């Protein structure tokens, strides 16, 4: 029966699986970015921007978190499955936050 199996590609895969070692230089640059981000977010909070204050603070936090996920946690060099996994987590998180908030906002239309 073995002839039947020949069309199965026995080497199917592992092209992207070679352990990608991120160099310390990259880590250090990311570290500096995070420090700068922290300084920026503290600085931004001291400037009066009205409704934009929380937006800026969250935007900076998102950028910092993305840097950590991509480089410190190696997602930039990981397979599509891993990227999808992270995406799924963020997506479900946003559903939880977004749809709960949608109820609260529409309960008092205009007062938020």
């Amino acid at each position, binding site marked *: 029966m073995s002839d039947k199996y020949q069309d199965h590609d*026995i*080497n*199917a*895969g*592992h*092209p*992207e*699986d070679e*352990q990608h*070692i*991120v*160099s*310390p230089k990259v*880590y*250090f640059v*990311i*570290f500096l970015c*995070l*420090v700068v981000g*922290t300084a920026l*977010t*503290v600085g931004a*909070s*001291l*400037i*009066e921007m009205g409704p934009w*204050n*929380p937006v800026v*603070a*969250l935007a*900076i*936090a998102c950028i*910092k*978190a993305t840097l*950590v*996920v991509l*480089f*410190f*946690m190696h997602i930039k060099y990981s*397979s*599509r*499955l*891993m990227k999808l*996994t*992270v995406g*799924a*987590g*963020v997506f*479900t*998180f946003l559903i*939880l*936050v977004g749809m*709960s*908030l949608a109820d*609260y906002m529409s309960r008092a239309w205009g007062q*938020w």
Partner: protein
Amino acid sequence: MSDSHAVAVVGHEEGHSEHPAYQRHHFVSMEQQNETVSFGMWLFLLTEIMFFGGLFTAYLIYRNWYFPAFVAASHTLNLWEGTINTFVLISSSFTMAMGVWCAETKRSKGLIWSLIGTLILGAVFLGIKYDEYHEKYELHHIPGEIFHFNSQGFVHPSAEALKTGEKPLAPDMAAKTEVYFSLYFAMTGMHALHMVIGMVLLSGMLWKASHGGYMNGHIAFVENFGLYWHFVDIVWIFLFPLLYLISRHA
């Protein structure tokens, strides 16, 4: 949808199958085992995202409901301690990343020192956190009857606070600072709990590393612990602006 590379690959020839001791029997190859373990770790981190997700949802709702109370309560936090702690945690993430790199490149000394650095920075973080908690305890800002929560300070701010632009709150709004502090303690408490668990694991890893562990290329534990530690860092990256930096204005 197709991640066909996930499919286990049969050993090409019999006798070729000399497995390292740390390969578990039900895996075909070390690659498969490593990928599987790190995928499992990521799924665990997803559960952690959702675990904190409930707290973030609560925070966002109440922040909009009781904005003045959240601003006033947030201003009682020590901005400097928060900033320093953010810096400390980012540094510990960096040392952890370096630890993973040292393990990957089989630098025993480097790994040990990175882990020690991470452990010390983690301890510094918790120390500063303790100082902040202690201050809250003395001000009766810990929610609940046991700690005699008291929001009078927000109705009658001190002269010093008034000078920096703090406004007195109406008593019913001042009472809502308890919601802020409930969330503050729930969120930072959960975060600190994760730090403590992380430091216990770190200590175990350090012990193993100082006895020559992780130098045979089997470093899945170091890598996955790294993921956990960075995740805890990310949670703080969001907690810091949300809890400390509401309407700070100079």
